[in-house]
């Protein structure tokens, strides 16, 4: 049965925008000034928001889109492309263990299992106490010192189970 002229649109409401903080906005505007068009600052804008929020929410994606004058879809396409832009909340510290070929040859699979067991989570999850998020990552460019792990902004080389234990307990 076809009912003619459906009443007004009853499409799902879109999520709310989460406004940028003054600091975020100022830093993003500063980045934009370096480029010929606003869109070029997308990656920097995402990094700035993540620096303050530790992750980038749907609402912040919209706010970034607004300041860059592009669609939220265009921002999200960039945000989801990079695995180090977090689109979900992460723990206080992020462990990113390299799983590319050199690290794999030198045992990163066992290290990942070890971290996984110790934290009682799967890769991609955050520990129940909210302290650690465990992620795999592609090559970090330090194959001569494999296996390696990025721990927040520090590179841990020649990673061992002992080093992992020490980090997780500290």
């Amino acid at each position, binding site marked *: 049965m076809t*009912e*003619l002229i459906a009443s007004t649109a009853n*499409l799902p409401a879109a*999520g709310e925008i989460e406004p940028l903080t003054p600091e975020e906005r100022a830093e993003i505007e500063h980045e934009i000034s370096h480029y010929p068009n606003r869109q070029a600052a997308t990656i920097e804008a995402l990094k700035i928001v993540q620096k303050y929020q530790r992750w980038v929410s749907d609402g912040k994606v919209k706010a970034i889109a607004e300041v860059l004058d592009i669609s939220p879809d265009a921002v999200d396409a960039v945000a989801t492309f990079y695995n180090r832009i977090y689109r979900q909340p992460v723990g206080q510290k992020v462990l990113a263990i390299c799983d590319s070929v050199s690290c794999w040859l030198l045992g990163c699979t066992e290290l990942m299992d070890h971290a996984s067991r110790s934290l009682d989570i799967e890769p991609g999850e955050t520990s129940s106490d909210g302290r650690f998020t465990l992620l795999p990552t592609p090559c970090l460019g330090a194959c001569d010192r494999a296996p390696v792990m990025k721990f927040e902004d520090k590179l841990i080389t020649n990673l061992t189970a002992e080093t992992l234990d020490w980090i997780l307990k500290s």
Partner: protein
Amino acid sequence: MATIEVDGTSYEVDGDRNLLDACLGLGLDLPYFCWHPTLGSVGSCRQCAVRVYANAEDTRGRLVMSCMTPVTDGQRLSIRDPESQAFRDKSIEVTMANHPHDCPVCEEGGECHLQDMTIMSRHTERRYRGLKKTYTNQYLGPCISHEMNRCIACYRCVRFYNDYAGGKDLAVLASKENVYFGRHEDGCLESGFSGNLVEVCPTGVFTDKTLSRSYNRKWDLQSAPSICSSCSLGCNISPGERQGRIKRIVNRYHHDINGYFICDRGRFGYDYTNADQRIQHCSIRQSADVTEEAPDYRDAINAIAVELAGAATGGNLIAIGSDRLSVEANFALQTLVDEDNFYSGMDPVQHQLLQSVLGIYRRPGIHAPTLREIESADAVLILGEDLVNSAPRMALSVRQATRNLSFELARKSQIPLWQDTSVRNLAQDRRSPLMILSVAGTDLDAIASLRLSAAADDIARLGFAVARCLSDRAPAVPNLSPDLESTAAGIADCLLRAKNPVIISGTSCNTPSVVESAAQVAMALSLAKSNGQIRPSWLSYVLPAANSLGLAMLQEGNDDNHLERAMQRVLANPGQCTALILQNDLYARAEPSRVDAFFGNLKSCIVLDQQPNRTTDRANILVPTQTDFETEGTLVNNEGRAQRYFEVFATDNPSLRDNWKTIANMAKAWVNPGTGQGLPESLLALARCENFDDLIALLKNRGGLFGHWDRAAPNAAFRIAGLKIPRMPHRYSGRTSLRANIRVAEAKQPEDRDSPLGFTMEGAPINIPGALTPGFWSPGWNSGESLNKFQDEINGHLKGGDPGLRLLQSPAATDMSAATSSDWFSVPAATPTAANGRLLAVSLPRLFDGEVLSALSPALAQRAELPQLEIHPETAAAVGLVEGHIATIRLESCQLKLPLRFNPRVASGLVAVPADVKTAGILPPVLLPAAVTIE
């Protein structure tokens, strides 16, 4: 041209193409996914591998992706060699690893390019036993379903939606094996071209939600060649029917018009034909409160004939035609009542605008371009049209036209034009000039090199100033600001420098000066560009309805027989006249109070219509009419091309006859009772029309523009090897049992005496003329991509000929220097600035709910924005209005209340009124532009 050798056979091919394009154009079978004839090559799917050999001695060769390899003269290649076959087989095996095994429940099944290519690549056994990737699907609105699990990551969707159609809300999310094609959150796809995703996607990720409500496979749908009637462009479509309901519409390729794509209004706007509210039976109102419902069709026609004969003897018979219906239906009505008593049903301004357009199109120095030609333009000037809303498919063509600069740059850098990514990267944001003068901004403004909002007369004045800059024989524009003088000079310069400039205007502003200024620019441009030999300028007008130009042609030279004249005649003879109204709700055509007076003063009112409306409420005798899917006819589009559409299916309602046939039946009933004496011969001839071709012959007799009317499409006697052309695919299932619940014996297939098409599966499967091709299918090619097999080259003409007949050819080269001052249009005065709280109200066309019939489709109605009045913030401040408040605008006889929205693109001093069908019911757009009070 270049010669290539494919598997030992030599072929002549176009040297500017890639190997895949060339091979497909030769009719060879070579699988592909990511390549698309209009989107070019990106080489992402790795499916079109072939082996090419370095020279005649080379026996090893190497595998290349044919879509990324240019044709070179003397090239040798092999599609059939075992290694490239094995490569394609393995490539598709990897592609299929994550593709679900859901073909039986997938709506793409049976017309799936992925299915076809899998079989073509001979990948018949699945070895992968692991888990497949699964995704969460999104809600994408009432028109499109989303099933990401089926995605093979060919990137066609985003390349069409964003790169080609300028969409902003579809993205490639995530990366590598997690890649996801969707929106940043659930929500309706915003682009008015989103429906093309259904056809662009090679598998079932994006499917037609309006089809899935009551689903049938492609092979179970009956189709006929049809023409979209929801705007004036005349896109070719292929509607699919099953059990008396239109189930969906797909694009039907026309080289010169729609090409591969149509708009969402055309694709999803068909539901009015399935509506429960359709008028199904005749009714006769004996007195004010007694209505005889559902009298026999014959009785109703006889009753009408009595009325007609009575009124005609007193000279009190009038008829009102419709610019939405076919030339034939209007012609039959015009013949029935005689030319003098036939009125267009348009208000005087629109009626005269269309006569003016027809006259301009027939001038020397003017050429009405096809959409394909508009796409090739390297400078576009738009005067007063919001194309995205008034002629959506043309907006898509204009968008492509702005890319011609990038093709120019690519040619200079020797980059093949099909190298899509390289060409786009090279051009970045650089585009060919697009100059838009509009009343309230348009969606194309974002890619325009010049955008300017102004009142219609001011747009026209700028146009006239451009004409003056191009030729000092054109009249000068008095009192133009220096700013506008220099803008005009800039536009003129841009048009002069372009190789193929195009000027676009239309009737949306409902303002003669706008239409005339566009013609002035075109004429001046022809003069400026002529050096001895005149070169016609491209000038395209967007018109109000599907057959506006056809109706104007039927009344050519008659500036008078419009709706207002009909009303005057009725009001001058109160209680005397009988009116016959053909599918035209007069309440959307004139001031409602005046229409009331018109009906109040009629003796009798006979209405033929398909949907109930305020006009059908006033009918004494009401006869149902068929929709364009149920009858045949010819529409004349905005470039003057007569295109025939055919009955998609035969209705079994005995009261529903072809519209022209019902009118011919009236003539028959009028003539029959021996009252034939003294009746005009044309009426007697109409009464003798037994089938459509008889009527065509009558129309052809009119000569002039109609002199070759029979050439618009082959007639009913046309056969291929003695056979008709089948409407049903040869795999149409259940024919013998479809009606088993009513009667076990198989019903006789309906006969079609009006066309060379049959309501059957049997008939000629090949060599079908373009105008008679119901849809596309070829062995091994079940999807729409089978179109490749029907074209003389990829993206070329249909082998069966481009459908339709161009009626308006530019007159042979005339010496334009003979143009006299009387050939120039005169310049209007500037629009006075708003005073005393009065503003100029203008009408804005609407994509989803701006056309009377398509707006009835629920899928489109849901997508329409709420109607709002739009106003520039400064104008609002000047008259003391606040955003969001309900504002009331008042004309002499109507008032309208709508929420107010601020839009800085609306020209100052204006208030923009949406032309959606609901608002139009209160304030008909034909009353605008007009000075209004607002509070």
